[in-house]
């Protein structure tokens, strides 16, 4: 295993800038999740690390070795794609042994068979080894494609939204599986997603990307509790952080344009009155849609709350975030 260092990476597609002077270090053994909406440069970052694409500027190091100019095969990385991940003309067994049979791998035949079976057992697909790849369900396919990355001993694993095409339950199962595989093997993993649950639950570090720039990097909890900008704050949290005019509840720090309130930063029961517009009961929690001086606020409350639409709830901020007009955080 090895660390990945990206230094000053810039990549443009014509007029469009996918990555702008990106600096990123993925520590050895870390599970780094790149988070951002479509077009933030997440996938481009992975492709540049893998060698499928070359940066216009900047350098890539894996395990201290410069990678620029090396083809993907010689970088010793494994990658799991979002879809089309299995070779449809091969069986599961052949799919899993494909990387081991490459001219670079030079794995002896009996070792290949052994590794394939071991990985198949880890991922609980051993009984499907002789099926054609196209005969599997979506979840099995994605397991096999993760397996194809696991049979090797790459320096790093790269995963491009590997769970996004699966249904919710499978996604939850595989999330736990992936995390435990990574924890057991101590692998370095760079993972791309726009699913904040995946980011929060699996990552040791999250990198928040905005239009090709890395805006914040750190442990998930830190990014949640101490976002550097309005953008970073809106990436995490369910329901989303409420963004309101800074002076809505009273005086704000100078320069502040917005106040950001996560549900736990809204103290209910005292302060100024708001109107309950809708009550959404999710079972384990209840969401309150509030109207406060013509602004919509979403927060959560006790699962068994007696509140109804039309009721009045007093609210007040509790240690809120303030942001400047350009979205930067203003610290009190």
């Amino acid at each position: 295993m090895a660390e990945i260092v990206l230094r000053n990476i810039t990549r443009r597609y014509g007029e469009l800038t996918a990555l702008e002077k990106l600096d990123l270090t993925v520590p050895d053994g870390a599970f780094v999740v790149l988070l951002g909406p479509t077009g933030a440069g997440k996938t481009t970052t992975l492709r540049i690390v893998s060698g499928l694409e070359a940066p216009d500027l900047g350098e890539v190091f894996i395990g201290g070795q410069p990678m620029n100019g090396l083809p993907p095969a010689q970088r010793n990385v494994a990658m799991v794609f979002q879809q089309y991940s299995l070779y449809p003309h091969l069986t599961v067994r052949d799919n899993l042994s494909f990387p081991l049979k490459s001219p670079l791998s030079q794995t002896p035949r009996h070792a290949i068979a052994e590794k394939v079976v071991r990985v198949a057992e880890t991922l609980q697909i051993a009984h499907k080894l002789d099926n054609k790849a196209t005969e599997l369900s979506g979840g099995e396919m994605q397991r096999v494609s993760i397996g194809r990355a696991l049979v090797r001993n790459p320096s790093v694993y790269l995963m491009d939204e590997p769970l996004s095409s699966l249904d919710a339950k499978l996604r939850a199962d595989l999330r736990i599986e992936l995390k435990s595989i990574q924890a057991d093997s101590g692998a370095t993993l760079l993972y791309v997603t726009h699913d904040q649950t995946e980011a929060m639950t699996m990552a040791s570090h999250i990198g928040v990307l905005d239009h090709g720039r890395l805006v914040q990097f750190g442990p998930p909890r830190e990014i949640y509790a101490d976002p550097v900008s309005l953008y970073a704050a809106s990436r995490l949290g369910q329901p989303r952080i409420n963004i309101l005019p800074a002076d809505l509840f009273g005086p704000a720090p100078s320069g502040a344009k917005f106040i950001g309130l996560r549900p736990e930063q809204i103290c209910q029961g005292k302060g100024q009155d708001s109107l309950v517009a809708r009550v959404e009961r999710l079972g384990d929690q209840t969401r309150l849609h509030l109207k406060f001086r013509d602004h919509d606020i979403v927060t959560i409350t006790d699962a068994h709350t007696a509140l109804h639409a039309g009721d009045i709830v007093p609210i007040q901020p509790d240690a809120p975030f303030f942001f400047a007009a350009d979205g930067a955080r203003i610290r009190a």
Partner: protein
Amino acid sequence: MSYSVSDPSRRTKWIAGIAVTLYAVITILPLLWIIATGFKSPADSIAYPPKIFFEPTLEGYVNLFTTRTRVNPEEMAALPEAQTWYEQIVRDQGQIIAGPSRYGERFLNSVIIGFGSTFLCMILGTAAAYAFSRFRVPLKEDLLFFILSTRMMPPIAVAIPIFLMFRNLGLNDTHLGMILLYTAVNLSLSVWLLKGFIDEIPIEYEEAALIDGYTRFQAFIKVVLPQAATGIASTAIFCLIFAWNEYAFAVLLTSGTAQTAPPFIPTIIGVGGKDWPAVAAGASIFLIPVMVFTILLRKHLLRGITFGAVRK
């Protein structure tokens, strides 16, 4: 691959069934007629009204593969007993076998040139189609249009320049010349068809192979080719059918060593009267390779023709 279509009504099915059956009968009838004629005697073959039931004979096939000379009855009587069944058939016509005909050679030429050009066309076509599909080729659209434009007039329109070119290059009446010519004519079709097939193969498969430790060429062989098999097979059938049946260039550019079967078959008519059964026999045998090739690949062909027509 799931898509929903409403089931056609009974009436639609009936009409479709009748239309398809009619079409099949119309297209297959001449074929059956040729095959039947091959087993008729010369008299039966030109009988009027045409005979549907007749006594089959191999005379046509024997005549196809032999050259014969007529002998008068006294000489015939002086000959020893016929050694083989085909010798007997020839003698029954008042002739003796003078030697083998050139049909075998011509047929072999057709096989060499037809399959040779198809093979070459598939190699070049797949490589070009892959490049057009995957790489940033300068002037890609113009080049593709140029390739297509070579088929906008009938190839025979450029027969004279090609004839002169071939004469100067010493390619007249050679296997190589005919293979190159048919390859050139077929290439535009194969590049366009194959590009469509390769476009449909997601690039992610190759990228996965690149990361799995393969070079681009290895990825092409191991990942792209197997998935393009359907397209390659159906394109190969179209190319083979053209090269196999081509007549005009074969007449113009071949005469001796490299002559293919199509220009040879009509020459059978001239040998000792109108020997229609021999012509029909020649045509029947000529059908076999393409038929076998098509039957072997028919699974691919069907999928190939409907390829892209159904959105998954």
